């Protein structure tokens, strides 16, 4: 049975890719109606408030690595960074992005630079704003939790792969302003649920691009995920019914 798993994954990937393409083509020019998520609603207003107050936004991308565990969450965080950087591009104080991986910090610099260049304000970009805060979970938490006080931060977005240390970053972020958090680790999710006003749980992390309106591809992939999720639910229910019937008779 296990020899079939790669093929099952391959066909699921093909179906998902096909659905993303179909929804991207179908939705051209339109934006789907999405379920209300207070966390993402607050992002734009928090960035606006920080621009008005002359403070910074801190995007904490977590402890994941682009080549290794947590790459998916880092990439989702980088997607959200595009929108945050766009919204904050009119500010004299651009967002500060912290990560625990060299590649992620370089990618965050690239994302911010390309966004600032698109907005024609590349002179405001500073490479030091996409930084490696520390290595390893404890090192990263120690580096990221001092960022709000060191950089005049008024809004902290914790989005990425992070464990219970997310509670420390959220707690220090809350002392300097608002905090919105979406992390992948189950312990980290419980930690941010207890310590933040608007926690985002589970797959809501991967919906960042769609909710922040980064591109239609993000909205299309969210709809494709919904289709596959309903298929998975149907298969699970069908499996439960079939196994119950087989046991009874």
């Amino acid at each position: 049975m296990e020899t079939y798993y790669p093929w099952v994954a391959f066909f699921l990937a093909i179906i998902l890719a096909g659905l993303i393409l179909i929804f991207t083509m179908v939705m051209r020019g339109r934006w789907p109606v999405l379920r209300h998520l207070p966390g993402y609603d607050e992002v734009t207003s928090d960035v606006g408030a920080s621009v008005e107050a002359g403070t910074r936004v801190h995007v904490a991308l977590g402890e994941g690595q682009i080549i290794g565990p947590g790459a998916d969450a880092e990439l989702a965080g980088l997607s959200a960074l595009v929108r945050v950087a766009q919204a904050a591009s009119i500010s004299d104080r651009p967002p500060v992005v912290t990560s625990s991986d060299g590649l992620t910090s370089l990618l965050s610099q690239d994302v911010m630079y390309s966004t600032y260049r698109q907005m024609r304000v590349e002179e405001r970009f500073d490479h030091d704003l996409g930084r490696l805060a520390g290595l390893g979970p404890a090192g990263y938490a120690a580096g990221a939790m001092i960022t709000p006080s060191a950089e005049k931060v008024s809004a902290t977005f914790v989005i990425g792969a992070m464990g219970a240390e997310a509670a420390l970053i959220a707690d220090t972020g809350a002392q300097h302003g608002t905090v919105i958090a979406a992390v992948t680790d189950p312990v980290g999710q419980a930690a941010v649920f207890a310590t933040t006003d608007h926690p985002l749980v589970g797959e809501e992390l991967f919906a960042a691009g769609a909710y922040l309106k980064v591109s239609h591809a993000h909205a299309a992939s969210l709809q494709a995920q919904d289709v596959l999720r309903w298929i998975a639910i149907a298969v699970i229910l069908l499996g439960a019914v079939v196994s119950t019937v087989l046991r009874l008779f």
Partner: protein
Amino acid sequence: MRVRTVLSVGIALFFGLLTLAGYFIPFKPLANLSGGLLYIAVFLSSIAMWVGAFNLSRIHIRKAASGKPGGGYSLVLFFSLWITFLVVFFSLRWNQDAVTIWIVRNIQLPLEASLSALVVFALLVGGVRLLHRRRDLMAYCFLGAALIVLFAAIPLPRGWLEEWLKGPDYYRQMLASIFLSVASGGGRGILLGMALGAAATGLRILMGMDRPYER
């Protein structure tokens, strides 16, 4: 589209799909090529880590030189980072693992343990404040579940435990299965959603729809 964009997207797609094909197609040369590409990527990521460490050092040196509050801590970080690096580098060169072990045991582990203690404190304060911030159903469910787990961890007096263990199996099993079903069902639901989200994120990169590498 600019030539540079086309080139960078083309390179990313080509090597991304080649690496993915190495996982799915049972063809040894392809698997070897995929492994080789990953090896190069890991090597490049270690160089990126170096760049990150230099960048971090520069930020802290600047902060210390600017005379801002907390500049002393930046100096401590800078010197401890590079002194540790030099000590570990030369101790490994001369096969003196004892120095590295001493640093890990006597400096790194106590510091990380202190930080873990702070996490517990932050969680405790967060849990206490939870109902002040949010008075919704999920907050009550979260607190209820946390309290049940905490009570379950308390060592009960011996008599109570024996009485409970002698009680009817049916109720105990029913209670356990309800909690296990709810917890594992919820956990699996979250995992399923996250797996789909992760797959979609990866596919967007492989399809060139998301380009974080573009400058």
